[in-house]
């Protein structure tokens, strides 16, 4: 007797992902790819140096409006810098920060969660107590306090963004690990003679990858928003360096007079979070289906 189910080939995985996606998901994926490309190629495609000031042509509106300055497609900002170039570099830094932050969070939270899930006892107690502690102090507030206390250098910033959401990772990983260690195949592996470390690495870890990926996307977009919130309050990355958040933050006073300072970076923030959220949800759906296969 032979199994009748067909074996999906490796190439087919991405193909089937794309085929199963609906229009919104496809759009989100395209937007995501475009944004990443824009960020990566910022140096090449930005028309100007993002720091190049021109005090005599401050606050010029985008193409198509009165007083427009030719060559500055999206207008100039309060120091006469090119909004388009700053948006591109801002996108680059924002995505970079979010990536660094999300990775750091994954590393910290994931490791702690794994330890807590596998080693019951004090390791678990301490981790979960720290999680409770973290939950008790809303993170935005904590981040603000840290930045207010320790200054707004890029290092502090990355640390703050990096610890953002660690407790989510820790909780999810711990819960998943617990769930998985209850599954018979873990017991089977132990009964086969697998030791603690072997079981953790070969059986547990690969099975928590998909919830982790989903959480990663969530935390990525949360960090983008957190960064912009901190910047909005003037506790973000130092000027003149642009991130999308600082652009919105410093531009907001000009909202009624020069809305283009805010609109481009705000739109980029929304696009990033929107596409990442959709992609995350999509991944989650896929992951769920895989786990549900009977």
């Amino acid at each position, binding site marked *: 007797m032979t199994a009748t189910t067909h074996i999906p080939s490796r190439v087919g995985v991405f193909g089937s992902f794309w085929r199963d996606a609906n229009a919104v998901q496809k759009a989100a994926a395209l937007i995501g790819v475009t944004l990443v490309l824009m960020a990566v190629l910022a140096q090449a495609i930005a028309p100007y140096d993002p720091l190049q000031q021109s005090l005599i042509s401050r606050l010029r509106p985008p193409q198509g409006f009165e007083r427009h300055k030719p060559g500055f497609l999206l207008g100039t900002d309060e120091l006469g810098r090119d909004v388009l170039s700053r948006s591109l570099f801002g996108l680059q830094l924002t995505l970079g920060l979010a990536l660094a932050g999300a990775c750091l969070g994954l590393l910290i939270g994931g490791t702690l969660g794994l330890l807590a899930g596998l080693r019951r006892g004090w390791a678990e107690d301490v981790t979960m107590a720290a999680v409770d502690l973290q939950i008790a102090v809303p993170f935005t507030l904590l981040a603000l306090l840290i930045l207010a206390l320790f200054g707004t250098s890029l290092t502090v910033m990355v640390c703050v963004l990096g610890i953002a959401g660690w407790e989510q990772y820790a909780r999810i990983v711990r819960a998943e690990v617990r769930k998985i260690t209850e599954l018979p195949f873990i017991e089977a592996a132990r009964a086969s003679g697998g030791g603690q470390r072997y079981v953790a690495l070969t059986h547990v870890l690969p099975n928590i990858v998909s919830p982790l990926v989903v959480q990663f996307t969530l935390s990525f977009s949360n960090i983008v928003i957190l960064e912009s919130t901190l910047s909005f309050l003037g506790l973000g990355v130092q000027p003149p360096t642009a991130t999308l958040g600082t652009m919105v933050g410093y531009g907001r006073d000009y909202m009624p*007079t020069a809305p283009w300072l805010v609109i481009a970076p705000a739109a980029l923030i929304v696009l990033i979070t929107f596409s990442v959220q959709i992609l995350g949800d999509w991944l989650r759906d896929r992951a769920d289906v895989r786990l549900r296969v009977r």
Partner: protein
Amino acid sequence: QSITVGAANISDYLDPGRDHSNVGSQFYYNSFDTLIDRDHSKLEPEWVPALATEWKLLDDTTMELKLREGVKFHNGEDMTADDVIFSLNRMYQATFAPYLVRSKDRLSNFAEAVKVDNYTVQIKVERPEPLWETLVSLQQVMIIPEDYTKALSGDPEVAEDGDFEAFSLAPVGTGPYAISEFVPGQKLIYSRFDGFWGEQAPLEQATVIRIPETASRITALKTGEADIVTNIAPDQLDLINADPNLKTEGSATALFHVMIMNVNHPNLTDPKLRQALSLAIDRDLLNDALWLGKAVVPSSHTMEEMGELHMPELTTFEYDPEQARKLLAESSYDGEEIVFDAYPVYYTNGVLAAQAITEMWAEVGIKGRVNVSEQWTGSSPEMMTRSWSNPMYFADPFGSFGVMWAPDAASEGAGRFNTDEEYREIWDRFRFSADLEDRKAAYVELMDRIKQDPPVLPLYRPFESWGMHQGINWKPQPGHIPYVLDFRAGAISLADS
């Protein structure tokens, strides 16, 4: 008739003696009086009687003042000589730490106030004082009630720290408005004080609320939630003026935005480098771009308000990129990064100016970096350069330059400025010479020292604006220290009814 003011900031406490912040100075003049006042509608000092009706010098070091009779505090108490010497001596002979700090930088020459009779007091100074009226009309020596204050905490007969702390939350004065409600940092309500000794207050009530966001302040003005709003940046003026119901008033405030330089920072010890840092900055361009040309760029550390001591002819500070490059080449500078610290929102256009300045430095070959932080770095040995403001606390170079750059004053105390014997000697001549010409000559010498070994560059007098409804007649008075919200008779009137 009542109005609402939307202010960017409201103090956390109200005590004229303890306070000398730009935020606090908005609020005292409506509720407190000094012994001697000046006509604030005039730029030139013209002393007018306030709580003292007449004053004369008994000798070089003693002034005798006759007090106005029938003056009442907001709490109904009569003002007598006891209240006056209590108010003055709490500063002259301060025991409460926050007073001590204030008393030393401007009142150190004042020994004590003594009571002669119920309506006569004498003020004694250590050395002959050329600035008598000026220093008697300071915000810090406004008069507060003795009995009320002492009874606020602990022993009602003794002035304890707790009394002064309590006073700053429930302040009582003799001015035309009583402070009927004060929520620290949030809200302040002035109510007309019917027992006021002078001309009745024109407003029944004035409520000051805090609206920290610029855009929100302007919006509140449009929605009618505020009748007057403070701290409007020049970029926003058109927006308000475009609305036929609204207008703006403004003036170049009696205060310098300055750049300070730490002469003791290892990288900045060479005066040539600091001269280059200063000469590289095109302050006129900053003014044109950021202030629409409305700010005032000084060539010396003096102001119009200082009368005879206003010396626009001095060129202590100027823009000369060529010279800057030359000095830089001669200096010890070797491409090190010069950090420019700035507060994020505190000063209008502060962060923008900081960024523009580092660009200007780059033009002459100096590598600058802006560091925006809420932190005060001025007393840190690591501080290299930073933005700051140098208000005119009173109309004299002593009240502006002196508060910071006198020997042993703040800057030297914080370790970023050095003085020597010679400097002290010049300072002493400037401070205490009876003859105005001698003071002037000494100040020129000081300015020359500053030019040769600069610790500071005044950028400009910022143009501060207030937005308001058309029906309100109010504008900043030229005779005030910066930011005062003067709602006394003659300073404000409402057009409708």
